[in-house]
């Protein structure tokens, strides 16, 4: 299978998930909907965890640089899946679910940072001009702050009022860092166009944009007059599905590329 086909398949899969979710959700009883949403989110998170685990295993988990990034993604999405299950099972936010969210978010930041600084780690830092990188990162940081500002302020006030644990702040702050890293991810993907590694960076960049949609839809939708409960939920789920499907596709692409290389070694 070609990597381009994998990317198209990821797009089709995300579209099917979003369309099917929109149709199914409306038919469900109100009491069932929270369980359905938890189930869907958990499945999507586990999809990434499995794909990232495959890739990490192929690269010896923490032994290789590439493996370290995928190990972080594997841990991150496993923790986030666990937090979904714990929250539904206990009927609310508990210390255990909060700890899983914190661990998951920190692991996503580390994993994304490892991929984003691949060029530096490889000694290829002269590929993009420093000015271009600084400007692009500054722009993405501003967008990240705009998307996460409300969540940061709300959680900060809730923490001060004693209604939330301070850990509630970790998730939006981690999102700011991850979203700001989309600039180096995008510039790396752009530089790598024409090569196999391009697809891994491009799929990861698209996945991160999915998380931006998931996080920022609450602000974006009302701004353009789309503020019904259904539309806001559909937009957030769309972002969630795009993020999970495309990051899983990136992991699978990485695994497939390494597997083919391994077969070439065996044949050679």
């Amino acid at each position, binding site marked *: 299978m070609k990597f381009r086909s994998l990317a198209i398949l990821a797009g089709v899969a995300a579209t099917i998930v979003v369309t099917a979710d929109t149709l199914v959700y409306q038919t469900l009883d109100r009491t069932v909907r929270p369980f359905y949403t938890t189930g869907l989110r958990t499945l999507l998170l586990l999809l990434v965890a499995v794909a990232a685990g495959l890739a990490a295993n*192929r*690269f*010896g988990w923490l032994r*290789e*640089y*590439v*493996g370290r990034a995928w190990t972080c993604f594997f841990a991150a999405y496993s923790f986030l899946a666990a937090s979904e299950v714990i929250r539904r099972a206990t009927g609310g936010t508990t210390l255990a679910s909060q700890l899983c969210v914190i661990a998951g978010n920190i692991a996503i930041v580390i994993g994304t940072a490892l991929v984003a600084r*691949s060029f530096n*780690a*490889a*000694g*290829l830092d*002269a*590929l993009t001009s420093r000015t271009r990188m600084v400007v692009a990162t500054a722009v993405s940081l501003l967008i990240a702050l705009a998307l996460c500002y409300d969540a940061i302020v709300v959680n900060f006030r809730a923490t001060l009022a004693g209604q939330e644990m301070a850990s509630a702040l970790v998730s939006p702050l981690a999102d700011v860092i991850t979203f700001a890293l989309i600039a180096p991810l995008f510039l790396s993907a752009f*530089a*790598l*166009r*024409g*090569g*196999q*590694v*391009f697809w891994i960076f491009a799929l990861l960049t698209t996945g991160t944009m999915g998380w931006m949609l998931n996080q920022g839809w609450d602000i974006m939708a009302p701004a353009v007059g789309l503020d019904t409960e259904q539309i806001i939920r559909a937009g957030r789920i769309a972002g969630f599905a795009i993020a999970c499907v495309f990051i899983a596709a990136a992991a699978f692409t*990485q695994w497939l*590329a*390494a597997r*083919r*290389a*391994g077969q*070439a*070694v065996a044949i*050679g």
Partner: protein
Amino acid sequence: MANAVSIAEFVTGRLAIHLGPNVARMAVKTFAQKAVALKPEQLTLADVPRLIEAMRPMLHVMVGRDPGEVVLSEIAREYQVA
């Protein structure tokens, strides 16, 4: 000189499969400079082993150890380097 140009072109072509033509060209330029302090077009057969060694960590980071070693072994085989 024709041979030297073909070394740079061959190595760039091998790297481009994974890294794309732009990064591949820049990688050959960077590591030819780092390994033997030469421009890509000045590379000779004698420089190939040092170029391979210089590129090894870069390939391990960018594509992983196994895919990286496949690329390096193809280059080594082409120029009959052990």
